[in-house]
């Protein structure tokens, strides 16, 4: 399908309203001052909760690393709960709200619909998150992120999560209201830009996610207060995963939008085909939320038809969407590089990519880790038959540390290298350390994911304090837990470095008011090259096609190796 969409290029738009916006000294775009303030608030809160989750992460890794076994048992489950809520909910949701406010204002040349609503959203989310963290640290909510019934936490735990959910939903309302007003006032022409479209997909998925959160958390809060009877535990599991897993699909949409944005900022890449990219987001909107059923594959109360239909994301249409993005993002980068004159051989363009730009390296590592590790393991583990040999093992944890941490968190970190100079208007301090940070974090989390996955393949369970009590696990399992531990040390060092860079820049970074931000380094065009020169050349992205073939080969080998592993433990005679 050829591209039929027209994308607005807001080259020199009029300000949305006098004194309500400023002109960005780097991009020339108008930045709504109201949105800017709340992007700042939400981004700062996100990084604070990332730090809390990171401290919890290293404590957990040094406990699951059986040779170290750091924490006592009660604190292990407490810190595991803390880690889950801060990393999977608070860090991600606050940052996503910042992304939503950016994408519905700056690319559309629009004003944020309401500052009061933004305040209401932020206050709810902040109070809720502080309530949850406080009650966990008081030792009255050792129920893990999932808080499966009949485990019961202090009511403040559920109330805090409800507040975070309603606060996020309030922000999503503000996002849609801003879109409506922008379209009504014609602040942009044609279709909305792809990054805003991706954020819209994320916001839509957030609506259905947060609805599930309300459905499950309100009766559970009421039960914890002693007002109503205990909800059915199986019902709780099903509805809770409508919150727990779907919130990660919000991440996927936001992360993919970040990939496109960073590709454009660092290499000048434009989507190779707007219609195909948007259709892939449409497939996410329609089908990706069904994946929550993965968590119920061994639950007896739902039937095989429900499990197979939903865990195949309605016959893998959402997986197709991820593979489309996994192709079009590097393909657009390759096309941009070749059009800049870096056309030697299959991969000659790779050496000229802006590797020293931490936003680019972070986004690329995010794409590779998400696709090659997270994507392949996710589809395989989500197969009903294979899931029986992996369910509740560390393989599951290994999978989602590749998707959520190696994928989403790393992409959000990468974006921050532009958010702080452009929105906070301070240039990064300690730039050589910033260039190394995505590599430290990415390689570290790669080892975490692989260590967990291989330990899980040897049967090591997740969420268990001590695996030595049974004597079932030998040297190989302990070696893999050591790999996980060393990876965690590296990844958390990268995380702490990220926090130090962000906080240090906000406090001591040189202001860039009145001038362009300090350049991280972008892809350079060779003399004589011309943008658009390869628009009709269908083989211009042959390097990406080769990489795709490698990806599909890895996928096939891993998938069928798991069927072999299943046959080994479950022989059919």
């Amino acid at each position: 399908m050829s591209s039929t969409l027209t994308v607005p290029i807001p080259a020199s738009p009029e300000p949305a309203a006098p004194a309500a916006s400023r002109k960005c000294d780097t991009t020339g775009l108008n930045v709504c001052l109201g949105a800017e303030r709340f992007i700042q608030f939400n981004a700062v809160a996100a990084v604070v909760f990332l730090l809390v989750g990171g401290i919890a992460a290293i404590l957990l890794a040094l406990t699951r690393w059986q040779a170290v076994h750091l924490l006592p048992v009660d604190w292990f489950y407490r810190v595991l709960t803390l880690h889950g809520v801060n990393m999977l909910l608070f860090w991600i949701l606050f940052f996503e709200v910042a992304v939503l406010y950016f994408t519905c204002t700056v690319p559309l040349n629009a004003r944020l619909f309401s500052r009061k609503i933004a305040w209401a959203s932020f206050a709810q989310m902040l109070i809720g998150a502080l309530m949850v963290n406080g009650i966990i640290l008081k030792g009255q909510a050792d129920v893990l992120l999932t808080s499966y019934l009949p485990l019961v936490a202090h009511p403040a735990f559920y109330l805090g999560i409800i507040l975070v959910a309603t606060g996020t939903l309030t922000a999503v309302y503000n996002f849609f209201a801003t879109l409506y007003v922008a379209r009504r006032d014609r602040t942009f022409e044609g279709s909305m830009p792809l990054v805003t479209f991706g954020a819209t997909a994320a916001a839509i998925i957030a609506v259905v996610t947060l609805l599930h959160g309300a459905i499950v958390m309100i009766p559970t809060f009421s039960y914890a207060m002693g007002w109503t009877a205990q909800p059915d535990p199986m019902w709780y599991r099903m509805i809770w995963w409508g919150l727990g897993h779907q919130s990660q699909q919000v991440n996927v949409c936001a992360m993919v939008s970040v990939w496109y944005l960073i590709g454009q900022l660092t290499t000048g890449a434009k989507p190779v085909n707007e219609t195909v990219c948007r259709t892939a987001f449409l497939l996410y909107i329609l089908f990706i939320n069904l994946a929550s059923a993965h968590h119920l594959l061994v639950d007896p109360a739902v039937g095989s038809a429900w499990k197979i239909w939903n865990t195949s994301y309605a016959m893998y249409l959402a997986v197709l969407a991820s593979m489309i993005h996994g192709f079009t993002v590097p393909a657009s980068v390759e096309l941009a590089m070749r059009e800049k004159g870096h056309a030697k051989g299959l991969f000659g363009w790779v050496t000229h990519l802006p590797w020293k730009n931490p936003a680019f390296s972070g986004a690329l590592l995010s794409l590779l880790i998400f696709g090659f590790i997270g994507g392949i393991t996710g589809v395989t583990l989500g197969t009903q038959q294979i899931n029986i040999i992996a369910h509740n093992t560390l393989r599951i944890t290994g999978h989602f540390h590749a998707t959520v941490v190696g994928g989403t968190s790393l992409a959000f970190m990468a974006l921050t290298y532009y958010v702080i100079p452009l929105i906070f208007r301070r240039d990064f301090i300690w730039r050589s350390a910033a260039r190394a940070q995505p590599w430290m974090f990415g390689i570290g989390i790669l080892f975490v994911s692989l260590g967990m996955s291989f330990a899980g393949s040897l049967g090591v369970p997740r969420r268990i304090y001590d695996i030595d009590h049974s004597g079932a696990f030998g040297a190989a399992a302990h070696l893999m837990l050591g790999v996980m531990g060393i990876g965690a040390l590296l990844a958390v060092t990268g995380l702490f470095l990220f926090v130090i860079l962000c906080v240090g820049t906000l406090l001591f970074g040189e202001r860039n008011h009145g001038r362009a931000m300090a350049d991280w380094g972008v892809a350079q065009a060779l003399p004589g090259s011309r943008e658009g020169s390869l628009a009709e050349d269908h083989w211009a992205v042959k390097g990406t096609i080769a990489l795709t073939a490698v990806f599909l080969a890895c996928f096939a080998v891993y998938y069928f190796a798991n069927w072999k592993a299943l046959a080994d433990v479950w022989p059919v005679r």
Partner: protein
Amino acid sequence: MPNPETKPPLLQRVLDNPWLLLVLGVVIPLLSYTVWGWIEISLVPPATLP
């Protein structure tokens, strides 16, 4: 010069309508995952105590 009377293709009109996408994005998972699953769970007979 493009004819202003020409309608954009159907897919583009769908993609350009965030409200339609919002409805579809809420209804499909609610029916496929939540309602169907809720019905299945509600049809499980209560276990008898030993």
